């Protein structure tokens, strides 16, 4: 199985605070990787470096064989132009904790915005795709609603559909259920599970241990800007080798 995402000795600091201290990770195509860890462990930052929303200070990341944000020449990495970075991002869907739907656009307009503007698809085709995606997340009848008229769970499902509209080869989820009322978490996780079963490559940062157990092929546990351990959920969640992982799991379970 080839690596869809390859992360090599990635370092990142915000001012004097080092949030990523040398991350190495491989994600195979078609697999689901769930990243767990306490707040401030650097998991969200790591996710954001994968589509270059944050620049790395050291190391490199490649998605589907292409370096993210840089071009290698000799022993140097040259930062790409904005245009090229934007093009790379269209291959990587990102789902935010706070949904970040565009509130002044209808659900359908949210979904077709990028396909129209970035991929220059004909409007008819983009809208047809958008409606198909909305059906897939169970919101076909909400196409003309504004985001504010939807529940949090519905908004996040729209956000997932919006990320899918560009037909990305990789999906990144940054705590997709953390901003939701407890009774709405399930509907969003169901959509993500459904995508997982269809073989979408994804990396999910979350606090939902049950979801990790059920869906993840690999669970990664991070703490203090490092990966403490990783492996299949049965191993990491039920027989953690590290004390730090054990104490984290004992608190959240």
């Amino acid at each position, binding site marked *: 199985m080839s690596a869809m995402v390859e992360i090599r000795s990635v370092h990142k600091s915000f001012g004097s605070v080092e949030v990523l201290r040398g991350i190495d990770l491989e994600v195979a195509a078609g697999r689901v990787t769930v990243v767990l860890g306490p707040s401030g462990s650097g998991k969200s930052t790591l996710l954001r470096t994968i*589509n270059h*929303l944050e620049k790395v200070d050291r190391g490199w990341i490649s998605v589907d064989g292409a370096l993210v944000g840089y071009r290698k020449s000799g022993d140097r990495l040259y930062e790409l132009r*904005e*245009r090229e970075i*934007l*093009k790379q*991002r*269209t291959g*990587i*869907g*990102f789902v*935010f904790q*706070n949904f*970040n*739907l*565009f*509130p*002044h*656009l*209808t659900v359908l307009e949210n979904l077709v*915005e*990028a396909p129209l*503007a*970035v991929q220059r698809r004909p409007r008819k085709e983009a809208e047809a795709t958008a409606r198909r995606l909305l059906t897939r997340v169970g919101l076909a009848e909400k196409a003309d609603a*504004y*985001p*504010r008229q939807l529940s949090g769970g519905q908004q996040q499902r729209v956000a997932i559909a*919006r*990320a899918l509209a*560009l037909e990305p080869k990789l999906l990144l989820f940054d705590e997709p259920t953390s901003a939701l009322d407890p009774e709405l978490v399930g509907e969003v996780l169901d959509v993500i599970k459904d995508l997982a079963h269809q073989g979408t490559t994804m990396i999910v940062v979350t606090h939902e241990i049950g979801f990790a157990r059920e869906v993840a092929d690999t669970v990664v546990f991070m703490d203090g800007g490092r990966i403490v351990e990783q492996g299949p959920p049965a191993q990491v969640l039920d027989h953690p080798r590290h004390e730090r992982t054990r104490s984290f799991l004992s608190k959240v379970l």
Partner: protein
Amino acid sequence: MPSDILDAPAVSAAPPGEPDRAAPRIVPRRRTGQWASAAVLLVLLALALVSVVRNPAFQWDVVADYFLTSAVLRGLGLTLWLTAVVMALGFALGTLLAVLRLSANPVLRGIGWGYVWLFRSMPILVQLLFWFNIGALYPVVLGVKTVDLLSPVAVAVIGLTLHEAAYAAEVVRGGVLSVDKGQLEAAQALGLGAGRRLRRIVLPQAMRSIVPPAGNMLIGTLKGTSIVSVIAVQDLLYSVQLVYHRTYQVIPLLLVATLWYVLVTSVLSVGQRHVERHYARGTAGAR
């Protein structure tokens, strides 16, 4: 403490001295003071109105005579034209300045800041007189005499626009800053280019906080253009001044100008309400 709150309705459900289960009738408190003060104010207002209408010194017949004369209407036309041009150019330049001030480049940021600082510091009257006399500094530009190049109307447009842009820049910048940072990140994650992000995602949302102060500025500009009468531009105010310099009917002619300003301002206020409703779509306040 939560238990206190939960208990409270249970107690009030059966008020003391009210044995039957039927809901008691609610009698609102009498607001005698409010009624009395409203009545007094209405009487005062009526008295003022009567005195304004009946005082012959206001010369309402003269007001009526001049209200629709072609000189006044021409002045009104110029005032409206000047307001529209200055608002359009001022906000175009102001948006550009706001983008400069929000730029990651410190030099561009500094230039944007410097412009706003300079043109907000200079009284508009001084600025108009300065542009009016620019010929003293640069008598010839590109082989043309500056005096020929800049008519009084051109001076008015330049001076008012540069002034307006400084304020517009702050209004637009405030609007852009009011948009959640996540919106920009979502747009970036979707691969939208910088221009598209600004035009399609940020500015439409910024408009909600831009429109109210912009409406204020529009009305301010409408009346503010009257300052161009000092450089003999024949706007509404200058047109009535020309008449009363001849006829000495100062008060009624100033009333003519005032009534027109009030009329146009009222129309603009109604327009502003509609624009605000348009940009509020998709938000909690939208109907």
